[in-house]
């Protein structure tokens, strides 16, 4: 098994390295190499998945292997691979979607001048994602976290000649970094107090009480900050809509399935360290994000932006799932959402590919033109809005159930359940709005309509595969067992007081049934409202829009978040930099120039002294020596006798002195 894990990890890296260097010269610009690599990784991931599936008791570890990576004196950082149930699922998700995206982008990116480099970046990103999933310690996860950020930066800014694309990639990278700082702080706290990085070591240490109380909560929240940044949660979600500048398969891969899911995976992986308060915090953030993103999605005109906001809200859902204790629900939603969101993105990709524009106003009536895309797109929408037989319903329902249960237990937080229910309805509404505006109805732009054609086979095949996976029934049965909720106690080598949460177990069943029926109701009303407004045009969208003008503007401008950031963070930094600049110019330069003038004056003075004084002295001495030496020279007559005489004279004096 271990070899499989290593191969899964290294194949994409190998492909990336080969592709980046000699991709251009390979036949077909080497697109087959990364795709082949990622498909192999997927095939290798299957046995690990089946092994995990066959014995899925909680805590079963398929592979646990670590090597010594860095050593600073007595500090030793190990790097290893840790595969358990959660990782096996994630492996399947990542490798499958990544290979589908690879196949899809062969068609989509046809003719692009940097075709081979695109595949190289894709491969790099998949390697990073796989690494993030497989790694067994905090330090490793942080490294791959950054690598994933780099991957997304490269891919978002792939068409870097477009200013908006490069700005978007920079924005994405910086906001991710902000989140990463929090995460890094959290990891450092863990390391400084516990001294180890490995997950299992950290968990055992925390279980033994190495880190506890408010400190643990703070660490948990700090690490969650990383997830906020990466999974585009409430304060740091602004980069995701702009990230749509990148090619659609990229958005599909990164902003639907993998990277954004990384945050949720990380929370899932480190779930045991979150205390009650930390989980509560996560839930709140999740609900705010979900509700806000959903409302904004309603007014969006750009098809990819709508999907982006829907992703943000769904992520909020997952966070709420995890936050309210529904560990299995949250992660289940993560996997299902990965598939149907990838489907939706790829679908929109083929639509854009066909219509060559992202604005929904240009589309309409594409149903007849692109039947496969339409049907697969429809399945994805149904799954997303939570219609019963589809996967989305089961996972969303599970989250709503856990949210309700949490609300029952802590009555103060009932509003979380209400908000989630509301946003579920809104999700259904804007998804079907999208469907009706693009596929059904009349073609708004005739020229584009004629031009539209079904996408080639390489693009439609992934759509079909994803559509199959979005059907809920295949998930039923085994998924709960795999994603069993890990208990901190299991790690505790020292028995810690019984975990208090067992009491609330009672009303779980009740919450489940209520959530079931309320979610179906809400989904249905949403779909109905969308149909009424967009399909049968009974209520005119524009009328409501003008009536609720202030609300519309608020939503349209995305709650003015960008402007707010602009106003606060950016302007503040600019203002600070201006002050510093001014300070620097006036004072430091002033000071330096001052010193310069002073020294120049002093130097000229000193030069004068030197010329007059020192040279004077030196020449003087030279002259004196010259005079003396001339006089001495006369003694040197060259006659030997004089020398002997002088010597004798000296001897005489010596004798005389010696006598007396």
């Amino acid at each position, binding site marked *: 098994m271990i070899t499989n894990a290593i191969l899964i990890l290294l194949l994409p890296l190998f492909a990336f390295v080969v592709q980046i260097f000699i991709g251009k010269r390979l036949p077909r610009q080497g697109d087959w190499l990364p795709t082949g690599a990622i498909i192999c990784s997927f095939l290798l991931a299957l046995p690990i998945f089946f092994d995990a599936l066959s014995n899925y008791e909680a805590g079963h570890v398929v592979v646990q292997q670590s090597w010594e990576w860095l050593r600073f004196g007595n500090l030793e950082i190990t790097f290893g691979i840790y595969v358990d149930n959660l990782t096996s699922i994630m492996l399947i998700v990542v490798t499958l979607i990544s290979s589908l995206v690879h196949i899809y982008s062969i068609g989509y990116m046809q003719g692009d001048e940097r075709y081979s480099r695109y595949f190289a970046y894709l491969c790099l990103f998949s390697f990073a994602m796989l690494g993030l999933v497989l790694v067994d310690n905090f330090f490793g996860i942080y490294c791959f976290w950054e690598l994933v950020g780099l991957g997304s930066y490269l891919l978002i800014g792939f068409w870097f000649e477009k200013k908006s694309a490069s700005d978007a990639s920079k924005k994405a990278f910086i906001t991710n970094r902000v989140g990463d700082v929090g995460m890094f702080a959290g990891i450092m706290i863990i390391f400084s107090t516990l001294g180890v990085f490995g997950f299992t070591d950290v968990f055992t240490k925390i279980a033994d009480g190495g880190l506890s109380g408010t400190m643990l909560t703070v660490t948990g929240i700090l690490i969650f900050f990383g997830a906020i940044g990466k999974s585009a949660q409430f304060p740091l979600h602004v980069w995701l809509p702009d990230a749509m500048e990148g090619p659609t398969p990229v958005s599909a891969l990164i902003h639907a399935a993998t990277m954004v899911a990384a945050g949720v995976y990380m929370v899932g992986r480190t779930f045991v360290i979150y205390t009650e308060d930390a989980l509560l915090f996560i839930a709140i953030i999740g609900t705010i994000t979900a509700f806000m993103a959903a409302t904004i999605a309603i007014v969006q005109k750009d098809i990819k932006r709508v999907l982006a906001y829907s992703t943000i809200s769904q992520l909020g859902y997952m966070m709420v799932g995890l936050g309210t204790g529904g560990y299995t629900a949250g992660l289940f939603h993560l996997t299902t959402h990965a598939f149907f969101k990838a489907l939706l993105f790829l679908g929109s990709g083929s639509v854009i590919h066909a219509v060559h524009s992202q604005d929904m106003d240009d589309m309409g009536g594409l149903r007849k033109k692109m039947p496969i895309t339409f049907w697969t797109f429809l399945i994805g929408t149904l799954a997303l809005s939570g219609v019963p037989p589809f996967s989305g319903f089961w996972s969303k329902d599970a989250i709503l159930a856990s949210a309700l249960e949490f609300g029952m237990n802590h009555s103060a937080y009932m509003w979380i359940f209400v908000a989630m229910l509301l946003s579920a309805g809104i999700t259904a509404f804007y998804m079907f709005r999208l469907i009706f505006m693009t596929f059904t109805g009349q073609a708004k732009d005739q020229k584009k309509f004629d031009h539209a054609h079904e996408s080639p086979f390489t693009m439609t095949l992934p759509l079909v595969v994803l559509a199959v996976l979005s059907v809920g029934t295949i998930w039923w049965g085994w998924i709960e067992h795999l994603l069993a909720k890990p208990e901190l106690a299991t790690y505790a080598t020292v028995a810690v007081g019984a975990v208090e949460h067992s009491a609330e177990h009672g009303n779980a069943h009740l919450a489940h049934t209520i959530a079931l029926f309320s979610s179906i109701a809400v989904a249905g009303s949403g779909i109905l409202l969308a149909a009424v407004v967009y399909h049968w045009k009974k209520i005119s969208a524009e009328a409501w829009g003008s009536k609720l003008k202030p609300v519309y503007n608020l939503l349209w401008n995305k709650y003015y978040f960008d402007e707010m950031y602009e106003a606060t963070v950016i302007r503040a930094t600019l203002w600070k930099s201006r002050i510093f600049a001014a300070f620097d110019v006036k004072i430091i330069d002033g000071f330096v120039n001052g010193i310069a003038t002073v020294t120049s004056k002093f130097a000229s003075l000193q030069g004068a002294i030197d010329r007059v004084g020192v040279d004077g002295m030196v020449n003087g001495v030279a002259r004196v020596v010259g005079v003396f030496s001339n006089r001495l020279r006369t003694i*040197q007559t060259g006659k*030997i006798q004089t020398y002997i*005489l002088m010597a004798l004279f000296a001897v005489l004096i010596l004798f005389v002195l010696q006598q007396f």
Partner: protein
Amino acid sequence: MLAVGLNHYLILSAILFCLGLFSVVTKKNAVTVLMGVELILNAANINFIAFAKYVDNDLDGQMIALFVIVTAAAAAAVALAIVLNIYQRLKSINLDEADSLAG
């Protein structure tokens, strides 16, 4: 005159030494200078042998005198060779003229 004691010989050798020294210092002719040197060496020999006889009363002094004579012979030989060479070059062995090393 008192009986001939050690001092007589020492005084005699001192006088000889000074005469030799004088000749070395004042004489212009190189050969005379060499003669002066020989005189000085003889004076030294007298002292050696006088002390050998009067103080040590053994033959060491005489042995040293013997070796001094031998060395003096060798020295005189080489010195004179040099003087002759000077003569060949400067056509005169007047030490005044051989002052090319003057400062």
